[in-house]
């Protein structure tokens, strides 16, 4: 039992199929420690996004267990599930799609906090009675000017929208923040900014990350440990600094070679 205490999330033997023919995920097991960033590398169709959807309980696994803080995440339903959702938040790939175009930045950023009136993260505690101030602080935490709260998403660039999405993702101070290809739809010159921001916030707030990407360099930069996935299966997992080690799986080596000259 004591071994579980420093594991935030324990996933064992997780499987999911979309229909008879498509096995999206088969028998995946791993753990995420508190304050750790676990990177997931894989090509499209490797099952990495399915993994994210399952951890968010947007889909239901066919088999396997997901234990978050000792609670069986895979069994939760209804209001209990809704209450547990605040522990796991996400930053999606395409910030343009992740923000409702009709809502102001203020409305989008405050949506999670409005849904859990009883929750106030530590970093907002001193201003908990002023939603406006909370929203302003969230924006400044992600490096956006607070006066942008009244803007609509279309007035922001892709990188700025992703910052808003990140502000929203951290607003409940979740234990686990899933980053599903957070830089894939951004320009190269902004990708580094967003990665730096995510890394700073992790240190600042002590969150755990599940960092999903096809970009092995970004995963290497962000993560403590790396999971390599292929066609719904776990190829291997290892400490990030062992990425270039000789004993790596041939598939991992292929991925590495594709990005080195």
């Amino acid at each position: 039992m004591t071994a579980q205490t420093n594991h935030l999330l324990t996933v064992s033997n997780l499987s999911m199929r979309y229909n008879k023919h498509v096995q999206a995920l088969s028998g995946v097991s791993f753990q995420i420690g508190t304050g750790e960033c676990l990177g997931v590398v894989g090509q499209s169709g490797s099952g990495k996004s399915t993994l994210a959807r399952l951890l968010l309980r947007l889909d239901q696994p066919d088999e396997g267990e997901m234990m978050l803080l000792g609670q069986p995440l895979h069994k939760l339903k209804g209001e209990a599930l809704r209450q547990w959702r605040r522990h796991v938040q996400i930053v999606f790939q395409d910030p343009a799609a992740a923000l409702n175009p009709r809502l102001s930045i203020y409305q989008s950023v405050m949506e999670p906090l409005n849904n859990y009136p009883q929750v106030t993260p530590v970093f907002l505690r001193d201003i908990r009675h002023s939603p406006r101030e909370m929203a302003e602080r969230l924006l400044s935490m992600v490096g956006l000017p607070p006066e942008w709260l009244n803007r609509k998403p279309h007035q922001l660039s892709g990188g700025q929208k992703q910052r808003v999405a990140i502000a929203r993702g951290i607003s409940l101070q979740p234990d686990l923040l899933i980053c599903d290809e957070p830089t894939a739809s951004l320009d190269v010159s902004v990708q580094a900014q967003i990665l730096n921001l995510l890394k700073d916030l992790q240190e600042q707030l002590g969150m755990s990350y599940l960092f999903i990407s096809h970009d092995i360099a970004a995963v290497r930069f962000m993560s403590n440990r790396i999971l390599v996935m292929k066609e719904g299966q776990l190829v291997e997992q290892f400490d990030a600094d062992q990425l270039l080690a000789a004993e790596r799986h041939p598939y991992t080596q292929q991925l590495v070679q594709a990005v080195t000259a």
Partner: protein
Amino acid sequence: MGFDGMLTSGKMGMNKRKSERTSTGTKTTPAERNIPPVLQIDDLSIHTRADSSGKRLVRNLNLTIQPGEMVALIGESGSGKSVTASAVTGLLPAPLSMSGGRILFQGRDTATLTSPERRAMLGKEISVVFQDYAGSFTPFIKIGKQLIEMIRRHMGWNKTTARVLATQALEQVELAAERVMDSYLFQLSGGQQQRVAIAAALMLEPDLLIADEPTTALDTLTGETILQLIDSLRHKTKCAVLFISHDLHHVIKRADRIAVMYGGEIVESGPTDVLVREARHPYTRFLLQSRMDLADVPARLQSIPGEPGAVSACGCPFALRCPVRIARCDSEAVPEMMVSDGHTARCHLIGEAQGDLGAAEITRTS
């Protein structure tokens, strides 16, 4: 003549045509032999409206591609690289128009071409491979039929001969030709679709291939094999390539020369190895620095300050984001300056020590 006979004769025909064209040269570069460049773009400007009003997407762009050379055009989205390619093919989308400069293809000004002449040139002398591989063929018509349609359109051959060439072209890109000929595009995987597009593009042995972000929509590994394919086929067919990409890594690996675009201008260009070693423009230097090294991971990544698409209206387009800018950068247009042979840059600080670009922090633009 049996089918095998047809096949070999077709192949021989193909090789003969090409060898006649290239056998004249010895080991000199095309420029030294005074062979005209395949493509020469002089002072090109493109506006969002026909009457030079509206936004300027490309400003005073110069670019030359020699026969058989692969030149990469690199820049962030909106920097004008794809628009430039569209101008070369004459397929600029409706309200955009060329507002200045000229484009010479094989020495001919493409502006003087009539519409049918231009169409006759497309697909035969200039080919395009798009990023959107799923849209490279009409979904309702079988691939074979569309390849044959293209061959007959340009070569005027009969169906049987055209079919032989189409089959060969698909074999060249390592596809099961017969099956693919009889398939619709959507029945293939993304990588296969892009292979078919490449097959079609190189089938008639064009002088110039425009590869417009050909791997952006593909997986890393699939993209890698596609680039290898383009690379090997361009050597085989001696076709020049204009390779448009936002991925510096790909470009450094494959291109002979690199032109870096920012805000519609080529801010720096030169032979790949020279540019990698001695980049002079701050934007190029930023791009090179932001490459990640898997062996040596820094605590923080070098990032380019500011927002992409922040382009100053006059002076240097990069001035708004440049940490080493001086007063002149905001107001004075920067001429193209020669750094070394074949290496040019547009920066007021070229002669001076720019120093360290620093750990650039986010600057707010509002």
